[in-house]
């Protein structure tokens, strides 16, 4: 569970690929240690929204059991300093192509009369100071990522079921099945999806599914120096994210669309959509 052990960027991976070791011996040793992850990988690769749960039940031994988890993400916008470490970590971890973003950071510069929002390169290189033409009363950063909605329109519109929601709450894309029609990209209200310029299939934040199923946290959470980004398990008693969602005043993005996002926000401003 020590997050420090796995920070180094993984090899280029499919949506739920486990990292492969350099030699056969190491690979075999790693396979045994990471059998939980490997099993999840196998499940994920073959997953369809309907047959997934049954397959999970068939897995024997100390496998990762997605019935025991229900993940959620918490962003405390008051803590974000706009350093962009999360965007860089995500890009490195998931080999995100240039010009596309699985996560990004928005800067809000707000006055009583007007507001300005930007996200140069998704906040990849942080933010340089700007001048705006109105008196500024507040300014803040808002990290964004896939909301892993419970009632998500992106999986609803997928014509072949390549987009699906796992039982532990992550919304994933099966890159082997995706036909690259782009309907999910259009259906996501948050702009979280894109067509990968190399694979020509839909791509998005997976909450670093290859990490979380091994007990690690998503790369962006690990990289965040201020604790803005937190990742938790709603099935664990005493989980800080669960407690925050249970006890604090949390918001979600575009709640009127009733997509039931599983990314919760603390101290969200009315300007944020």
């Amino acid at each position, binding site marked *: 569970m020590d997050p420090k052990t796995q920070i180094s960027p993984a090899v280029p991976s499919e949506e739920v690929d486990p990292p492969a070791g350099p030699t056969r011996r190491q690979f075999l040793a790693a396979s045994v240690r990471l059998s939980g992850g490997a099993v999840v990988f196998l499940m994920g690769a073959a997953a369809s*929204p309907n047959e997934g749960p049954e397959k999970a039940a068939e897995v024997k031994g100390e496998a990762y059991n997605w019935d025991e988890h229900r993940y959620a993400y918490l962003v405390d916008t008051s803590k974000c300093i706009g350093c962009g470490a999360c965007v860089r970590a995500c890009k490195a971890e998931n080999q995100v192509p240039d010009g*596309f*973003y699985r996560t*990004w950071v*928005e800067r809000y510069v707000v006055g009583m009369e007007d507001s*300005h*929002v*930007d*996200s140069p*390169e*998704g906040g990849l290189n942080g933010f340089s100071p700007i001048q705006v033409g109105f008196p500024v009363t507040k300014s803040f950063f808002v990290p*964004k990522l896939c909301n892993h909605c419970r009632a998500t*329109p992106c*999986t*609803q*519109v*997928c*014509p*072949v*079921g390549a987009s699906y929601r796992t039982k532990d709450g992550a919304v994933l894309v099966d890159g082997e*099945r*995706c*036909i*690259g*029609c*782009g*309907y999910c*990209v*259009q*259906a*996501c*209200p*948050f*702009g*979280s*999806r*894109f*067509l990968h310029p190399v*694979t*020509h*299939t839909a791509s998005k934040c997976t909450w670093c599914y290859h990490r979380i199923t091994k007990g690690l946290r998503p790369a962006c959470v690990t990289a965040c120096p201020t604790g803005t980004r937190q990742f938790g398990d709603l099935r664990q008693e005493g989980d800080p994210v669960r407690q925050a969602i249970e006890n604090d005043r949390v918001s979600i993005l575009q709640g009127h*669309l009733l997509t039931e996002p599983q990314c919760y926000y603390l101290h969200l401003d009315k300007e944020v*959509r």
Partner: protein
Amino acid sequence: MLEISGYAFPNDVHVTWSLMIVMYPYITGFVAGSFIVTSLYHLFGRQEFKPVARLAMATSFAFLLVASLPLQLHLGQPQRGPSVMITPHFTSAMAGFGILYSFYLVVLLLEVWFVWRQEIIERAKRHRGLARTFYAVLALGTYDQSPEAVEIDHRAIQILAGIGLPAACMLHGYVGFIFGAIKANPWWSTPLMPVIFLLSAAVSGIALLVILYQVFARVGRRPVDAEAISALARWLWFFLILTITLELLELIVMAYERSESWLIISELITTRLEFSYVTVQMIVGGLIPFILLAVVVLMNRFLHERVRNTLSTVAAFLCLLQVFSMRWNIVIGGQLLSKSLRGLRSPYEPEAFGREGVLMAAALLIAPFVILWVFDRVLGIEEAEGEDGRGEAPGTETGSAPSPTA
């Protein structure tokens, strides 16, 4: 050079649905529109459409054959395209395409067969060798031309038209649904969308037939039937009025409600889409043909045939432009607008070559006419001389519509 005004979500600056997705509803629109025309004769017994009924059906058929191509060309993984039909995920609006398309294709194939059955038999009898075998196969082994058989044909055509009309409407209304049911995009998300798509399909179908009918008449050295042109112009006017009304209504409601998206949408149509929406869709393609067709319809009695034909043809071309720009403004316009509702990207310029380029789009538009030409060579779109009286709508009076035969 990509330019963003305001703030767009960083992934929202790509136009994922390209020119091909503009072509797709444009082409299926012709399928549905021309089927509506053929149904007006075969199903509703409107005799004035008799001269164009067969042409309309052949047009619907020709466009249907290419209707799925733009979708296939657009896919990032085209080789997986068939899985939409083999393993459809039924919560997706898109998964219905395979079913609707195949169903309509079967209905239309059957109807075409019944309508052209006599023709096929005649040709099978007339030809020798390979050609004869070909027509014999097309005739499916039955050479029955007895009055009873012809009567059965008529009944079958009527029943198939009765199934085909809702199927064609579903096929195209469904295209509108694909856009109208995307709640993430305020420029698309309205229950009016399928209706607007359907009505504009009728506009494009009728407009195309106004032109095609005259071209076919010229090529085949047949007189252009004045009654048919008047009727087509009348119905074109009617559907154009409905289409423009609904298109405006959608905007007016949005503006009057001052919905949260209105600010950005008003910016979209007055800046990025100023030319394609205001100028082309509303004025050049909307207002002007409305006036031209109003002249044709309201002053029909006073018009010389050539004036009527010319006015109708010009109006029809403008209507075709209107419908294309409407498809463009919906599909592309909706992607210039970021879901942040704070920003717009610069206008999209399609590539010239390549799978989703302008050249391919032009090829897709030309292909149905090539198919029509082949159809005409193989089966003869118009009835051959001396074969009057076949394919008539049963139980209706003839007389007002002269036979198209020369």
